[in-house]
């Protein structure tokens, strides 16, 4: 009985420490990943990005495959309709950033290369009033990594 109580307490403790995925929507997971990264909480940030990829990567791939190029002068609302693509792309960018900060260049390169190769039409809304493309930012990061390797 005593062992069971300890185990239950341990499990509840673990449950408390686990990241809260909220409603599990891609938007929620991405926002939480940004916040965790901003707060320096690498493990939570990685957990949120992993969950987003696990749940929405397939849908994101479909959305990406449906595009030959990004529509020009598209209303913001239309861009938001590609929610899975946008959030999965953004999560891969966050994952790359987090891994870079942790010193895991190999892991970061994998995440960023996947973003560039598979989700290049993902877009992320900047609160300042425009969309930016995580794949473009990832490409820049990859060349920046190359810069350090060329020492």
């Amino acid at each position, binding site marked *: 009985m005593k062992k069971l109580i300890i185990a239950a307490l341990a499990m509840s403790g673990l449950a408390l420490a686990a990241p809260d995925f909220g409603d599990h929507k891609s938007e929620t997971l991405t926002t939480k990943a940004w916040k965790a990264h901003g707060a320096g909480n690498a493990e939570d940030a990685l957990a949120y990005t992993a969950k987003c990829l696990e749940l929405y990567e397939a849908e994101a791939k479909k959305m990406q495959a449906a595009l030959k190029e990004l529509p*020009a002068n598209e209303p913001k609302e239309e861009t938001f309709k590609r929610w899975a693509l946008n959030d999965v792309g953004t999560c891969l960018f966050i994952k790359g950033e987090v891994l870079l900060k942790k010193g895991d260049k190999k892991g970061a390169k994998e995440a960023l290369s996947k973003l560039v190769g598979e989700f290049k039409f993902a877009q992320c809304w900047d609160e300042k009033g425009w969309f930016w493309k995580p794949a*473009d930012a990832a*490409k820049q*990061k990859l060349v*920046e990594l*190359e*810069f350090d390797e060329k020492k």
Partner: protein
Amino acid sequence: MKRSKCASAAQWYFRRVGDPAYSSPAPFPPRMIAGPGAEQASRGVCGAPGGVTGSTFFSRGSAVVGRVTSRGVLCALGLLLAGTLAYAQTPAKVELQQAGQSGWRLQVNGADFVIRGAGGATAPGLLEKLKEAGGNCVRTWGVDTLEAKVSGGARFVDRAQQLGLMVVPGLWVEHERHGFNYADAAKVRQQREKILAAVRQYKNHPAVLLWGLGNEMEGPTSPTGSVAVLKEVEELARLIKQEDPAHPVMSVIAFNAAKIENVKRCCPSLDILGVNSYGGAAGAGEALKRGGWTKPFAVTEFGVRGPWEVATTAWGAPLEPTSHEKARTFYATQRLVTELNDGKEQCLGTFAFIWGWKQERTATWFGMFLPTLEKLAPVDAMTRAWTGQWPVQRCPEIRALNSAAAGKTAKPGQPLTATLEMEIPAGAAFTYDWQVVAESSTIGVGGDAEAAPAAFPDLVKQNNSTNCAFVAPSASGNYRLFVTVHDGHGSAATANFPFRVAP
């Protein structure tokens, strides 16, 4: 000064004889006519009180611009001789050619010319450093710079030529945000005359590559660019091409893809579009292509991400990258826009910003050098990108600047510390300079001039080491702790962080 004396006389000569209004071609190369400061010189020297009586002459706008004196006549005669000599100067043969279906290339005297450029280089010694780093072109924002005295007392434009560097003279086009009214016909005419005079003056100089018409004149923060200004840019481009068909005309905008449509519609005479872009520079080619820009472009300012593009503290102070982090961005942007990204085939090259130093948000944000002429890591990055080789003497590398005070609020007078993580090669004897500086309170727009904020040297208690002990200022406000690392061989590294003081 001697040159200016003559310029005023030449100006008179040109206005009476060479002015198109008199239906007679200029009798000698216009570069000898009306240099910057010529008007001032005409008042102060050739038309000085005490000169032999002369007649007043007028510009088309009826402003008195000088007086004819016997000294002036002598000057004009001297100029005839100098002008004859100057005829020996032949402008470079500059051609824009289509390459493939949608690509463009620039040719100078029959050879491909990829712009490996920088903006600035006005302090003596910096043109030489540009050449040494593998650069081949320098851009100015105004024509006055072409007359600036640089190494050995040579004119900027002549020294550039001696070094084999091409020059893109900036022809300043006024900004509405500085109060210029494009509905004021007289002002617009004056601006046209000034710009065309500059074109006449320099069009035969062999160092001139192309004209840089204006800089962000359409409005750096305007979403689609001022149509009134862009229409005038078109008129200026057309007039410049009439005056000098030998050089392409480029106009420079603060890049934003939403401006492309207005530029295309209003400015059909432009040969090249110059785009100033920082965080988005790598994607400029793709954006231009998608926006339907089919002519060539150059990235006319790029480098570190701007203060408006980076993370900030809770009170909005932007976090400046270290000089090494900036170097990465320079290198990556250069590679992406010229070699890797879509639209690269339309890109004629780039101009790194700024080959020198400038107070803009901080004293170190954009500068690739310190005022001591010590180079910073972005120079190494551009050397690598331009030549494929690192410079022999690399800049010190700051890995991190750590402090519990970074991005936080301290109490007035609170003792604080900071530590540098450095890559220190064996045998290096670096020196360290820590400074507490107030946050800039005159934050301009679009690179407008800013006053340097106050420094508080007495607050640094432990200096010249990788560790710093300092004291928070007694007055509440926003500050930064700066560190500069010197290698003693002409290279340096910089970093800083913002902190706040409140009771």
